[in-house]
Every structure is written in structure tokens, then in C-alpha cells.
């Protein structure tokens, strides 16, 4: 009985928690604006989705960079390519469950061919994919791959 009550409370807590999570739904022109007029020294845009296993596997590495006090000049954006219809019942609950603290936005687009090349011409469209924007030196670095633990930190150190 106590277990059942506890379980219920945990579920309620998660649901409430999930409802409080704010994920801005954006269109490509907004994403483009963010990338072009970056407000941080270094910005990391990780393209992911809750249904993408290799994406989920590398999320902790992006979270680690986002939460690293020594990397205060680095801003991490997790750009979800989940379907906007699943924002409340799937994406928010995933984010709550994982306690993600990075800035998460959901890119709601259907005509992918119209923008993939504008992110980077080398992107085939597979995810995970990551764009790093160095706003100090006005340079961009694009990776269509999965990151290993610590790899992102090394890349960031090498960029600066």
C-alpha cells in the first residue's frame, strides 16, 4: 500500500514536473536567427530527438558542458526534432525524467530539404548532429556523428 502511494506520488510529481517544463517551439527562421546572431562566445546546437537512441546516449555529454562552471561562456541548445504533436506527452516527460537543464527548443518543420543545407552543406540529415558556433572568431564547426564522453570538451578547448 505504501509502495503504491509512493509510486502514485512519484508519477504525480513527474507529471506536474513535466507540465512546468518550458520548451519553446520554433521555426527554422528563428533557429537561423539564433545561429546568426549568437549572444554567447561559443554556442553548441545539438540536433536530437527522443526516438533517436544514439542522440539520447550522448545527451549527458552536452549536459555536462552546459553545467560546467569553467565553461560559462559556452551555451548549449538542444534542438529537438521530435514531432510537435508529441511535445507534451513525450518530449516534456522525457526532459523531466532526465532532469535536463540545457536550453531545449523544438524545431517544428516538415520541409527538411529547405533548411538542412543552411545549417551546414555537409549535413546529410542524419541525427545526431551538432553545430558549434564560435562567435568570437565567427567560425562554425559541424559534426554529423555521435560524441564520446569528453570529446565535446576537447573540441571546445581546441576551438578556443
Amino acid at each position, binding site marked *: 500500500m505504501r509502495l503504491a502511494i509512493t509510486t502514485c506520488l512519484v508519477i504525480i510529481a513527474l507529471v506536474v514536473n513535466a507540465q512546468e517544463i518550458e520548451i519553446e517551439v520554433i521555426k527554422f527562421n528563428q533557429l537561423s536567427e539564433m545561429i546568426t546572431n549568437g549572444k554567447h562566445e561559443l554556442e553548441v546546437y545539438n540536433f536530437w530527438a527522443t*526516438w533517436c537512441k544514439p542522440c539520447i546516449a550522448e545527451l549527458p555529454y552536452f549536459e555536462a558542458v552546459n553545467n560546467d562552471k569553467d565553461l560559462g561562456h559556452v551555451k548549449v541548445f538542444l534542438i529537438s526534432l521530435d514531432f510537435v504533436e508529441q511535445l507534451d506527452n513525450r518530449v516534456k516527460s522525457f526532459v523531466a525524467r532526465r532532469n535536463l537543464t540545457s536550453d531545449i527548443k523544438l524545431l517544428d518543420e516538415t520541409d527538411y*530539404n529547405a533548411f538542412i543545407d543552411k545549417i551546414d552543406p555537409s549535413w*546529410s*540529415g542524419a*541525427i545526431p548532429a551538432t553545430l558549434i558556433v564560435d562567435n568570437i572568431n565567427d567560425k562554425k564547426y559541424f559534426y554529423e556523428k555521435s560524441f564520446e564522453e569528453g570529446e565535446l570538451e576537447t573540441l571546445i578547448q581546441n576551438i578556443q
Partner: protein
Amino acid sequence: MLVIAVAVAIGSAFVSPRAEGYEVGDTAIDFSLKNIDGDIVSMSDYDDAKGFLVIFTCNTCPYAKMYEDRIIDLDEKYKDKGYPVIAINPNDPVRSPGDSWNEMKTRYADKSMTYPYLFDETQEITSAYGATKTPHVYLLNKEADKLVVKYIGAIDDNFKDASAVTKTYVEDAVDALIDNKAVQTTSTKAIGCTIKWKES
């Protein structure tokens, strides 16, 4: 000795698991891959075909699933016109258990697929073609016994809603070939699930 030479040649052709792959205009290689019924399927089996829609797809990717009905429609529309669909699952079932050969059989039956659904167990064909994600379409045209790549990319411009599609990339490309015209849009891009390569 000859056997060794051939083995070396084949081996060296697949040194890189992720080769650059084909561009439009390249000649594609044929394959001999296992279908869901255990039969080995090659494009050379199709004497009457004018070309092929080779589509890398799988059981597990949400985009691939959303396009399954449209892939069946493409096969039914173009098979009799000489351009049948051949679907290939490129994923390593160790990394993606839902893409095993047995799961392929289940999916094939559930969806009543009208085309061969082949398993690229070694991932050599996927690598040679340069597919990176599912679904990923290669339209091939038979020209003087060669299979020339005429279009690479997405099926259309709206994965979510077939009725809201405004650009039917694959249909336009096949229609152009049937009419002996040049394909206008020869490559497009779409978000897809990355291919689950074997971990070496």
C-alpha cells in the same frame, strides 16, 4: 592465387565502413542480398526493369515507418512502368535489435509490403551507396547495361502528412525518366535516423 587476389580486391574495396558513396551520375553496383523469405535478390534478376528505386529503410525509425505506406504506393505505381522498389535494411541488429531479420519478416507481413525487403548484413552495399540514414532513396536507371544513379534523397517534402506534400521528389524523378526527360531535382535532403553501423 587468383582467389587470394580477388579476396584482397574485395577486402580493399570495403576498407572504410563509411565510404563517400554515390553521387548523381555515378554507376551503382548490383547486390546479392537476403530477402525476408530467404531468397537472394539481385537487380540482375529483373530482366524487364528499366531501373530501380533502391530505398534504404528499416523497421524502427519513425520516419521510415511514416513513409512505409508511401513506399508501397511508389512500388505499386511504378513497378509496372519498369521501376520497382527494392527496400534494404542497413542496420546492425546488434545495435538495433528491432531491425533483425526476424523482425523484418514480421514488419513485412504486418504492412503487406509489395516489394523485396532485403537485409544488408555486412553493410557493404549501404557503405558503397553512401546511405547515411533511413529512409534514403536511390533512383537507378538502366543505361547500356549500367545502373546509373539519377536521384538521391527524400521521397517528398512532408514526412508527417502525405496529403500535405507539395513536392513529390521521387515521383517527379521517375516520371521524368519514363518520359525520357532530364530529372529536374536530382538530390534532396531530409532528417532521418542515422544508420546503425556495426561497432568494430
